[in-house]
């Protein structure tokens, strides 16, 4: 008899069962939980950090659907398997068919039902997701997110439940085992990206750029578990009761065919291997020694006078291969060992000095996301050291639960420092600076952006459609962004501003008149507070980056997180009265909020980057659109928010907040903190403005604060510094 026909009939039987359809319908509905109760990528506070549109309306529902669907299918699996025994159908089936074959067919049919549920879920949620995600919706991401984030959990639940049943033959006990297994994922294993099989570690999903690394990481975790649970199921398969015997007796009978236990053990070993040999995250020492990076004993007799790299990221595999050439001078007249840092995921394929093979070794340990490459230099004076390297770059293990960089895909790349090329560790520059150049070959549609000072020029188009670009810069390190970028050239405050953003985001940016906002902010803030320290020589690159939880700035360039420009954020009336004004708000953060402007440890206080930013946004809007508009959209909004805040039950009775469950506590605290930082502080600054004598006086104070000489021991702008600059006390700014 063909097992295929048996499978078809079993599947047909399941699909004729109304309980099957109940489970399917509940699974289809389950993503709604991700919009309400279970939102791993979302904070309920409308002021605080929110996630991308894809995160909000696709990843959250898919993750919730995966969790709820897994529980539903585990119950369904146990129900169906126990039902065969409970209703004595096995008395008939076992007589004519091997119970092991029947178990295999039942498992396959259950898995198939879960696939039906998954596709129906995807179909059902498609119109809603398209509508909510808006211009940045992407069909491939939709399918990928649902398949990896949601569907990935269902077969795992089915396999575990079926294995538990086959071991115990008891519904209740199997259910308890499943609850324990799922509970571990939600609690103890929750912060281990390889173990949280039910709730994968996903902190953000990009709208505008690719999510390849994140998707691969979650898919890898789910695949590891799939293999492990297939192995577990294989062991439990051997315990399927036969000949009236118990688990052990049946095991003794079933084990007679050696390929069965061998296959199960092989699967378990494979899963173990997958776990240990994961390629995504390094194994850096968790006792971080920053002195290792900053207290370097440079070699006295070896210097570097130039660096060149030829880099080939592979958009298909996510790997990177390259060759780095260093011009070194060994003045010690003896063989010397030099040390380089490379990404722990890379392998060295060749090291030559002046064309001859040079001895090298890779140190075993890893720290701070680097591995040491030790190379023996010949005693020759001038040496051209060439290193060929490559592989799949690994992320620092401290970021294991927030994976996503370095991203190498056909849509987006972010390549930094040792990901691009080995970096000398104990070799100083021969001069004051080190000329560096790099040829990078990218997919044809990509525009490469060199972060910081330097130039980028197009070199050639290759026969395969890829393009090679040459980047000239300084120093050992480079940071390269590449993607399908649109560049808007804006003249503002005497600068040529290149505003780069993703082509996918063009409709949103145009609707918000983002380029105009950039010009307005740069002109206003430069005029009122002074130029940004990181303005380049007449040009300034403002680059939208893949979601990373924040921006940063350097020589002539600044990174703006895509989170700043999501449709939801642009509609946040706490930040501005329109999308364009929210863009203004986010850009004002270039003055108030980048780098070390505010103490990151003091996130809970009222003093943050948001107060000054919101106040400045109000001032810009007032200048652009008049006092009435600014008062209505800002001052009155702040006053209403603050009035509500003072009436809030948990503000008046904080003792009740502390007894709430942690997740609710965090949500309420975030929301309250948001009101304080965005509205209360802005009102206080407005009050300070009145007390110091008006807008001009306040502008001068803020100008002085912005351009003040930093205290290197504590470079942050504090509330007290602000008060001192205004000549006011905290009590004077009280809003009561």
């Amino acid at each position, binding site marked *: 008899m063909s097992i295929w026909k048996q499978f078809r009939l079993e599947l047909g*039987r399941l699909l004729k069962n109304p309980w099957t359809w109940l489970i399917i319908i509940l699974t289809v509905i389950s993503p709604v939980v991700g919009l309400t109760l279970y939102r791993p990528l979302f904070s309920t506070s409308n002021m605080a950090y929110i996630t991308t549109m894809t995160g909000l309306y696709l990843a959250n529902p898919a993750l919730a659907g995966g969790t709820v669907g897994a529980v539903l299918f585990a119950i369904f699996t146990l129900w169906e398997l126990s039902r065969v025994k409970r209703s004595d*159908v096995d008395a008939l*089936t076992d*007589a004519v068919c091997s119970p092991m074959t029947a178990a295999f067919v039942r498992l396959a049919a259950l898995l198939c039902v879960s696939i039906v549920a998954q596709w129906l879920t995807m179909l059902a949620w498609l119109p809603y997701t398209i509508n909510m995600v808006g211009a940045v919706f992407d069909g491939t991401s939709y399918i990928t997110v649902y398949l990896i984030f949601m569907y990935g959990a269902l077969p795992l639940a089915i396999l575990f439940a079926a294995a538990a049943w086959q071991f115990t033959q008891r519904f209740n006990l199997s259910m308890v085992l499943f609850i324990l297994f799922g509970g571990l994922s939600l609690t103890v294993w929750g912060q281990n990206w390889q173990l949280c099989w039910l709730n994968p570690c996903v902190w953000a999903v990009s709208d505008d750029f690719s999510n390849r690394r994140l998707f691969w990481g979650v898919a890898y975790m789910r695949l590891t578990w799939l293999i492990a649970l297939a192995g577990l199921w294989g062991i439990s398969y051997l315990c399927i009761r036969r000949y009236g015997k118990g688990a052990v007796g049946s095991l003794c009978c079933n084990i007679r065919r050696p390929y069965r236990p061998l296959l199960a053990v092989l699967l378990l070993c494979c899963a173990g291997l997958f776990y240990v040999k994961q390629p995504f995250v390094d194994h850096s020492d968790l006792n971080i020694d920053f002195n290792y990076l900053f207290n370097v004993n440079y070699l006295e007799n070896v210097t570097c006078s130039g660096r060149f790299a030829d880099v080939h990221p592979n958009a298909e595999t996510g790997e990177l291969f390259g060759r780095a050439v260093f011009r070194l001078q060994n003045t010690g007249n003896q063989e010397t060992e030099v040390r380089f840092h490379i990404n722990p995921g890379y392998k060295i394929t060749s090291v030559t000095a002046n064309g001859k093979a040079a001895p090298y070794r890779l140190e075993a340990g890893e720290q701070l996301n680097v591995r040491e490459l030790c190379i023996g230099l010949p005693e020759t004076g001038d040496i051209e050291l060439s290193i060929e390297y490559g592989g799949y770059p690994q992320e620092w293990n401290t970021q294991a639960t927030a994976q996503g960089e370095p991203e190498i895909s056909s849509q987006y790349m972010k390549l930094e420092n040792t990901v691009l090329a080995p970096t000398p560790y104990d070799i100083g520059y021969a001069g004051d600076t080190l000329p560096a150049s790099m040829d990078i070959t990218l997919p044809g549609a990509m525009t490469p952006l060199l972060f910081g000072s330097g130039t980028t020029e197009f070199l050639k188009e290759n026969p395969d459609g890829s393009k090679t670009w040459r980047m000239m810069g300084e120093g050992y390190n480079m940071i390269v962004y590449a993607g399908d970028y649109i560049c808007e050239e804006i003249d503002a405050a005497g600068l040529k501003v290149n505003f780069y953003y993703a082509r996918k985001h063009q409709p949103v940016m145009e609707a918000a008149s983002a380029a105009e906002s950039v010009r307005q902010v740069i002109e206003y803030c430069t005029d009122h507070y002074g130029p940004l320290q990181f303005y380049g020589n007449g040009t300034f690159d403002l680059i939208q980056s893949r979601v990373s939880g924040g921006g940063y700035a350097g020589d002539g360039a600044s990174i703006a997180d895509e989170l700043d420009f999501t449709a939801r954020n642009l509609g946040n009336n706490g930040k501005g009265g329109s999308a364009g004004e929210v863009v203004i708000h986010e850009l004002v953060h270039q003055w108030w909020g980048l780098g070390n402007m505010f103490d990151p440890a003091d996130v809970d206080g009222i003093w943050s980057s948001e107060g000054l930013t919101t106040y400045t946004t109000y001032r810009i809007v007032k200048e652009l659109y008049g006092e009435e508009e600014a008062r209505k959209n800002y001052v009155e909004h702040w006053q209403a928010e603050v009035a509500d805040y003072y009436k809030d039950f948990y503000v008046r009775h904080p003792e009740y907040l502390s007894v709430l469950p942690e997740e609710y506590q965090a949500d309420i605290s975030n929301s309250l903190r948001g009101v304080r930082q965005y509205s209360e502080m802005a009102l206080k600054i407005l009050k300070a403005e009145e007390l110091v004598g008006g807008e001009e006086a306040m502008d001068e104070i803020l100008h002085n604060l912005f351009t003040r000489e930093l205290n290197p021991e504590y470079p942050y702008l504090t509330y007290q510094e602000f008060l001192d600059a205004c000549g006011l006390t905290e009590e004077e700014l009280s809003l009561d």
Partner: protein
Amino acid sequence: MKIQMEQLSMTYPGGKQALRDVSLTLESPCLVGLLGPNGAGKSTLMKLLTAGLLPTAGGIRIDGQPLLKCEKQLKASLGYLPQAFGLYDELTVYQFLDYMAALKGICDSRQAVKEAIMAVNLKEKEKARIRTLSGGQRQRVGIAQAILGRPEFLVLDEPTVGLDPEERVNFRNMFSRIARKRLVLLSTHIIEDIQHVCDRLIVIGKGQVLFDGTPEQLISMTKAPSLEEAYLQLISKEAGR
């Protein structure tokens, strides 16, 4: 088909000995009646013959092959109706029998299912969900699945329980017809059925074979006026020991 049981013993894990040194040979074509009081070991014997249990001692050979070596072949040529069984309530009669036909590996399942449905007189109910059937109709579905595909070896444990007298007679006759070409092992408490159709009678008591012969031989051996009397005499004599 020839089934040989050699010094077959079966002791359950709890220690209860259900069969003790049972040696029998069953050969087709034949309708073998199995009689015995409750707990005598009839169902255990049937489960052993259908590979539902493994004997603790002795062995079973199917056409000369040890049962475990030809289990697959045995299952392919077996029709079994246990005393207690369940059905998938959500399926129709036809769907359930089609499902069982697939499990049995019957190639022309459509024909086999139709034949079985006709044989048990369920034509009118073939599209009815099993959950809507009466107890007797469910029993008929059970019989239908057992006779599906004309199995070489038919094992029926109390097949006529819950059937009305007319149906009982019909099925009794059907088993008799089947046994003209194949081997049928019929366990029942209804002596009349045995007397009318069985070529051979095996009486089991306390896990041992008390009698193996024709019903007529049992009557003449006990000099009882009827098979029922003869059976009762045999059982009470055994109980007296």
